[in-house]
């Protein structure tokens, strides 16, 4: 049978291969072809959504390819309600990234397209791999293209430092996870996730393994003491890099928590819930307050991402259906909102080549369309009812109230702080008096940018107004995750 997931994984690789053998002067063909490939992949992922059976918690579209059969390691792919939307988010964001760089990436266009297509394969593989070791492999291989994207197409001299930080921070977290999964492999004798789901680990070992996984995921999320790399990486990365970072890479960590830490080590997850809660609350409040004193537009969005990811981790570890579904929805929504905000900043940066907030003001006079889009996304960021983030944060708070009222209350202050920095940011950039220096530079969004922004607006409003389409496929899978007796 024709396997849709295999197609999703292989299609970008083939595209990258074709582009690799295209002479690099043929820029137009390279760009168009890469866009064509990524859009094909997006359509394919939509058909995965259409064919997805919402009435079962089983993994769907499964396929098994022998990799190292004598060590019991196989390429085993499949998706369930948890990973479905990440697949769609990934395939949606990659064409966006290619379009963002359509005019402002002028050097190494060929390598740019190859890097993004390979990155797409790696990210998709992370989300649909049902083998722990291969999950790790792809989880790590995301680093390579991302390192190059920040290092080569970044904007300033500091980008090298940022690329270094990004690479080493993530690596040092994940090598501990490698040891943990080797220990699991040593105990169980396989890295097949479905076998691991039904195997038991002793409580002592669970705590150890959980911490090792936590080291890896917490750096990726990032939770507060380990978040230093994120603002650096965001600021130095090109716009498309920031979109992928905010849209997908941050989700790898939280996805890992939900896919591995919680079902594999239920007792340890319960044991460490206070740790997660504390770190997330510190993250939400600290990051929100830090946002207020940033002068770089990208850093503001980066820190607000840290705050939102704090919400997500709280939701995940509330360990009930509402909380986890809210977390999933917020991840999805953050993937749209934060990416769109980075796109907005990229649009401004293309025109003025500065990201410092003090040079902006009164943009509504010269860029009305842009101001509209920026407004919608800012409202999404502060989770206004009617936008997607509201549904997510609301569900998370509902879930958390059932387990820990104090944490829910403290987390709710994050919403207020979010409102504060978002509105203040919008106010400073869009309203006020127009800075005369930049009038000539600030033309309104062009057609490419308009069509780039529009799908984001649709997605955000759709998820805010009628979230059931997105929640429906999740119900059974999420309920299945928390069915362990430890959570009852």
């Amino acid at each position, binding site marked *: 049978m024709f396997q849709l997931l295999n197609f999703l994984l292989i299609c970008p690789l083939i595209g990258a291969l074709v582009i690799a053998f295209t002479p690099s002067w043929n820029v137009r063909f390279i760009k168009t072809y890469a866009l064509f490939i990524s859009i094909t992949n997006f359509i394919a992922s939509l058909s995965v959504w259409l064919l997805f059976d919402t009435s079962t918690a089983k993994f769907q579209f499964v396929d098994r390819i022998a990799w190292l*059969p004598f060590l019991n390691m196989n390429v085993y792919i499949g998706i369930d309600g948890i990973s479905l939307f990440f697949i769609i988010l990934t395939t949606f964001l990659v064409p966006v990234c290619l379009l963002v760089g359509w005019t402002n990436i002028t050097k190494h266009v060929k390598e740019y397209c190859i890097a993004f297509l390979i990155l797409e394969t790696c990210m998709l593989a992370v989300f649909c791999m049902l083998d722990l070791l291969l999950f790790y492999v792809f989880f790590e291989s995301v680093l390579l293209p991302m390192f190059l994207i920040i290092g080569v197409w970044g904007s300033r001299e500091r980008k090298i430092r940022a690329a270094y930080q990004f*690479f080493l921070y993530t*690596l040092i977290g994940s*090598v501990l996870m*490698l040891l943990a999964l080797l220990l699991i492999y*040593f105990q169980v004798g396989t890295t097949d996730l479905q076998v691991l789901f039904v195997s038991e680990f002793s409580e002592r070992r669970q705590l150890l393994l959980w911490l090792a996984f936590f080291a890896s995921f917490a750096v990726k999320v990032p939770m507060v003491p380990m978040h230093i790399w994120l603002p650096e990486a965001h600021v130095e990365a090109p716009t498309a890099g920031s979109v992928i970072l905010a849209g997908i890479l941050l989700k790898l960590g939280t996805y890992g928590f939900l896919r591995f830490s919680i079902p594999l080590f239920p007792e340890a997850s319960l044991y460490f819930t206070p740790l997660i809660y504390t770190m997330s609350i510190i993250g939400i409040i600290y990051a929100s307050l830090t946002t207020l004193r940033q002068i770089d537009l990208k850093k503001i969005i980066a820190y607000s991402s840290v705050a939102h990811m704090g919400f997500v981790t709280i939701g995940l570890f509330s360990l009930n259906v509402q909380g986890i579904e809210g977390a999933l929805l917020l991840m999805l929504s953050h993937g749209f909102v934060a990416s769109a905000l980075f796109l907005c900043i990229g649009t401004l940066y293309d025109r003025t080549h500065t990201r410092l907030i003090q040079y902006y003001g009164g943009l509504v006079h010269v860029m009305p369309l842009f101001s509209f889009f920026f407004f919608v996304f800012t409202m999404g960021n502060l989770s206004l009812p009617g936008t997607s983030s509201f549904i997510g944060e609301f569900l998370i708070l509902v879930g958390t109230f059932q387990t820990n009222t104090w944490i829910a209350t403290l987390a709710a202050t994050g919403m207020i702080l979010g409102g504060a920095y978002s509105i203040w940011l919008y106010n400073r950039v869009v309203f006020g008096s127009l800075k005369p220096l930049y009038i000539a530079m600030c033309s309104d969004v062009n057609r490419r940018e308009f069509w780039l922004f529009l799908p984001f607006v649709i997605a955000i409003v759709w998820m805010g107004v009628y979230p059931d389409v997105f929640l429906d496929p999740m119900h059974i899978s999420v309920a299945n995750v928390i069915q362990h007796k430890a959570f009852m």
Partner: protein
Amino acid sequence: MQFINLFENDFYALFPELFLTCAALLLLVFGVIWSTSKASGYPILVHTVAWLSVWSIVCALGLTLHMPFSIMVCFYNTFVIDELTFLLKVMVLCSTGAALLMSMDYLKTSSLNVFEYSILVLLSCISMLLLVSSYDFISMYLAIEMQSLCFYVLAASKRNSEFSTEAGLKYFLLGAFSSGILLFGCSLIYGSTGITNFEDLAKCFAGISHTEPSLIHVGMCLLSIGFLFKLTAAPFHFWAPDVYEGAPTSVTAFFAMTPKIALLGVFIRLLLCSFYDFLFAWQYVLFFCSVSSLLIGSFGALAQKKIKRLLVYSSIGHVGYLLMGLCCGTVEGLHAVLLYLVLYVFMTVNIFAIILSSIDHAKTNRVKYIQDLGFLGQTHPVLAVTLSATLFSMAGIPPLAGFCSKFYLFFAAMSSSLYSLAILGVLTSVVSCFYYIRLIKIMYFEQPSHVNTFSAMDQEKATLIGLTSVFIVFFFLCPQSLFLWTYKVAYAFLG
């Protein structure tokens, strides 16, 4: 005639070595006569002899692959043929061939106009083949000495360079010293047991408890130190950076891979066959050496400015990983070591082939400082991509080949409860990442003070780089066959 009949099969078993010996001697005679012939104008013959040596290595490889025996002990129990020697011999021959191929251009352009170079390489290759299959202290020691003698000359072969002479002298002094320690260890063991044969030693030690220290322990310790010295494991590594840096680069490439295979091979045989009952004694030695090699390999390389020194420290680190696998003393451990060794050889061939390419059109300068790689990403994008793939692979970043060997190594360490070693191993791999990435940073991101335009690469090196890069990048897609082969070897040896 009686004598010949007695050894009839034995000669078959050592046929590749015999063939190579004859070939080396014939080539020597050919070189001596031809290069001094006035009639043909004293030809230099470097290229001719090098190519003939490569072809004789290819023939020897063919002979090894078609060996009629899979397991046998020959010449009065002094040599052995089994799965392990087969794998190691193939590797020794391949890496020697690769080292010769990549030095073709180097020999021509860096005024190393001596045809003896290839013959010395060939002779050391023969001694390493013998070393791999030696089954007795005497044959082992003689093979090591023959190999070392060739190496001393090779290290000093660039006669007009002070560095090279210094390297040769240093190598000679310290090599002789370590051989002395090795021999002393052998004699202590021989003194207390009266046995020099590996298998007899194993039989002699079996079943006796070896808890209280004895002379055998001392002998074994000295023997291990001798080997660790030659393997450049820390803390016996101090000679390595100077020797490797001073020796001509093509010789360094040869030193970095082939002797490691052979010495590690016989070391494996000694420890896991003869001294298996002393596992808990030698485990401490190896544990200590592995830890210090990992630390010195990763932290020592951070401060290096010359690329060869950097690679030496990185190879010290790799020796640390190899010792980690050996330390386990299990089938998984041996399997991991063999796998690591094979992939290490591939990566070393790749990286040295790139280092050996000249950086100006006159072909007089070569990559010496790491800053010489500056801007490679702009001037030679394909070469830069290849080099960065290899460096990432050496650092053990998935999905490149280096990762496959590393994860299995850590798994082996975990399954023999060497948790501290495994944790140290992953942490130092992160540190080593730092200096590998620094090279990539220099190639891609930095604005260099001057830009080197590499001259066009010769076909031999280009082929080597192409083959090894394809292997490194695509090994992940089907690792099964190599895993199975090395597993078969490890299982046949220990199982």
